[in-house]
């Protein structure tokens, strides 16, 4: 079987033939006849330049097909034809594209597996821009801050990194990721694989209207059996960045793990360690844009100790009215180990009530190891309240209200 082909199409029933896309396209892929504006599949490189200026929303159609539609076929349309989507077994379908970049798409697909099916963005989420910069032509960001978040004596070393895009436009939404392109080659002489990091800042920057993003990065150091250490290439590169250094950044990536833009929405955020990054962005966005929202934010956040919990200090200052916090520690002296799932079960009644509301959105982010425990906690809460977790989860996922990003 021949490989499926990505194709960009314009919906002729919505398009008003204003020529904006054709004028914008840097590679001359958009063309028109007296009837329609169409995209030439042999020229389009998915740079997405045409998407944002389109006034109608007709431009936003990406499909994966076995045989691409010719220009003549597209010229003849009055509506988009029914397109048989190629099933997931043939590779991630581009119509639900998280990222057009294959490398980033594969990484995100893997991170989202825990949702148990294809995730959808919340209905009210803002429209994400994706894949604006690829690894071949990355954006250049300057490091304007590198702050160690973990306390003295903590076994983990977690950093808060601020990357400023200066004069480059790099629009992000909370929950999206960026790719760090490492300089140089790996031991086999090939360029390093791109690493994805969730952004920890809201869309308008660390402070409102600053053109920067922040990341929460843990230095990976593993002890080998023979006593030596293996240091993660990317995490050590990022944690060692100095103020003024420049970094190559690809992205943004991710079009489903996004926050609802709805003051009625309740948001349950469950995380461990650096999985807190997107939720820092969510919380700050809610605080800035809808401080008196009716919906509530709930955070279940696990770490070994307070010294190892990123943003422990700042979190103490977040008012309870904005964020209902459950900080959970598994290595406190003289206390039994407690994990996020244990605390969730203690809030069983609240969570059961939330699971039954159509406005509740659940997000899980952290190490893959947390999935089983959290899943089991939801199942147990549901059993206790005579609910069916499998059904609720599937429904929430289909409605863009259940999201998992684990690694």
């Amino acid at each position, binding site marked *: 079987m021949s490989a499926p082909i990505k194709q960009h199409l314009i919906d002729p029933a*919505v398009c008003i033939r204003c020529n904006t896309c054709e004028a914008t396209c840097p590679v001359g892929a958009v063309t028109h006849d007296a009837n329609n504006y169409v995209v030439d599949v042999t020229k389009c490189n998915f740079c997405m330049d045409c998407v944002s200026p389109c006034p109608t929303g007709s431009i936003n159609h990406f499909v994966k097909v076995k045989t691409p539609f010719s220009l003549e076929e597209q010229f003849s349309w*009055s509506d988009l034809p029914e397109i048989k989507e190629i099933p997931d077994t043939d590779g991630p379908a581009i119509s639900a594209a998280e990222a057009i970049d294959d490398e980033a798409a594969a990484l995100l697909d893997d991170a989202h597996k825990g949702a148990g099916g294809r995730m959808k963005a919340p209905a009210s989420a*803002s429209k994400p821009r994706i894949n604006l910069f690829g690894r071949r032509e990355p954006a250049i960001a300057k490091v304007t801050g590198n702050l160690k978040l973990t306390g003295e004596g903590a076994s983990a070393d977690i950093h808060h990194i601020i990357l400023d895009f*200066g004069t480059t436009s790099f*629009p992000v939404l909370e929950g999206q990721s960026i790719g760090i392109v490492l300089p140089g080659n790996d031991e086999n002489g090939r360029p390093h694989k791109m690493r994805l990091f969730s952004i920890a800042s809201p869309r308008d920057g660390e402070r409102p*209207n600053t053109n920067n993003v922040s990341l929460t990065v843990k230095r990976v150091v593993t002890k080998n059996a023979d006593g030596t250490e293996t240091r993660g290439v990317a995490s050590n590169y990022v944690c060692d960045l100095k103020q003024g250094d420049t970094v190559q950044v690809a992205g943004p990536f991710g079009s489903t793990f996004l926050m609802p833009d709805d003051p009625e929405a309740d948001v349950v955020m469950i995380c461990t360690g650096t999985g807190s990054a997107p939720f820092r962005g969510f919380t700050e966005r809610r605080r800035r844009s809808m401080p008196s929202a009716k919906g509530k934010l709930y955070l279940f956040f696990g770490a070994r100790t307070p010294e190892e919990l990123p943003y422990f200090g700042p979190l103490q200052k977040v008012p309870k009215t904005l964020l209902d916090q459950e900080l959970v520690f598994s290595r406190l002296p003289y206390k039994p180990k407690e994990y996020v799932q244990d605390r969730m079960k203690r809030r069983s009644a609240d969570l059961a009530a939330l699971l039954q509301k159509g406005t509740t959105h659940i997000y899980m982010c952290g190490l893959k190891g947390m999935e089983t425990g959290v899943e089991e906690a939801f199942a147990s809460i549901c059993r206790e309240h005579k609910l069916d977790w499998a059904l609720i989860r599937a429904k929430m996922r289909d409605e863009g209200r259940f999201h998992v990003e684990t690694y």
Partner: protein
Amino acid sequence: MNIMNVDYDGLIPNNVNLNGDPRVKAALEKWHPGYLDWWNDMGPDGFQESLVYLRTAVSVDPKGWAKFDYVKMPDYKWGILLAPQGEDRKIPFGAHAGEKAWQEVPGEYRAMLRRLIVIQGDTEPASVEQQRFLGKTAPSLYDMRNLFQVNVEEGRHLWAMVYLLQKYFGADGREEAEALLQRRSGDEDTPRMLGAFNEETPDWLSFFMFTFFTDRDGKMQLEALAQSGFDPLSRTTRFMLTEEAHHMFVGETGVGRTIERTCQEMQKAGIDDPYNIEAVRKLGVIDLPTLQKKANLHYSLTLDLFGNEISTNAASAFHAGIKGRYREDKLDDDHKLESSTYPVTRFKDGKIVVEDVPALSALNLRLRDDYVADCQGGVSRWNKVLEKYNIKFQLKLPHVAFHRNIGEFKEVQADVDGNIISGDAWEKKKDEYLPSSNDRDFIESLMKTEVEPGKFASWIAPPKVGIDNKPGDFEYVKIA
């Protein structure tokens, strides 16, 4: 400073390095409070405190072209945004074709340029004034948001023209910039400069027709100025065109959705005859013949905006390299037009005739012809809706001689098919061609506001896609 980046730190967002130009910066900062006063007095009435889900241009780079968020209109970031400067751009047409594009005003064309910029600038606040009461009868929050988006963008276009005046025209420019805030649409003593911009926009159908027909004239004028050899004007108008496309969208889909609702209700009620006006009106929708009359009105008023078919002003502006033809860069000829001709529909000896005239003098008409073709595309798409519902009615553009006050046909009366008729015949037939007071009363009776998210007034269908991909019941305006 990088041109792609917008400076939001200062009072006036810009990508023209205002901080490095203290004279212009001071002039604009002085103009700014007057602009805000004008906006508060003449902008959307009753909604200045509401939160509106607006698109703000944050960069002229398509990658960060716009962002959507809730904004109070007086806090909208009006700014000065120019498309990036092309490397080594040449004057594309006229006597100076092939010379380096002007970065400063060429002395010999100063007065001509100023006049063109002032006329363009005058239309921008005029339409905001014309539309200021429409918020109160919006058929949905979606439409209300689109109206306000159009309004703030017209406001930004005024800024764009005022920047050119302040930056390049010294004391005269400052005076003109002030005068743009003083004139008022429809005012007896100080009206706006062009006729169509002193007409009322009394209802939402007028608004949609206005954005479809009259804003499209704006689009054509901007397209012609985007070709200009005066580079700052070209760059400004190129960026304005991206916003203007949204106005085309509001007009085309607004009328299209109105037609769609009428078709749906006629089908439901089993009415086949589109001329059974009384029965259709009872359904709470706008009958198709009245839609045709509205189109006749707005189309003919807008044709007048193109000026005289044969014009020495237009010829001079082209010859000077100041105002080009529609998509001049896509045309394959000598771009000087010194020896070619162009066919013009004229009124001679009581008859409509087509005559070849020197192409240079027919440039207004040429732009108008391109406009007519552009309008026809939209009308054909409206007719597809009628075909889809199997309704035997087609909308059409009236003849260019119909209902004209400027140009070849200003002295005569013609029917919609272009037959010259007597003044008496016109008086008798007028109400068949143009909205009568009875039609206007009926339309007005439908103008009931609908402010529940996701709900639409009886006479208009919901859109196919939400703004910024928002779901149907999104609260586009939080009314304060």
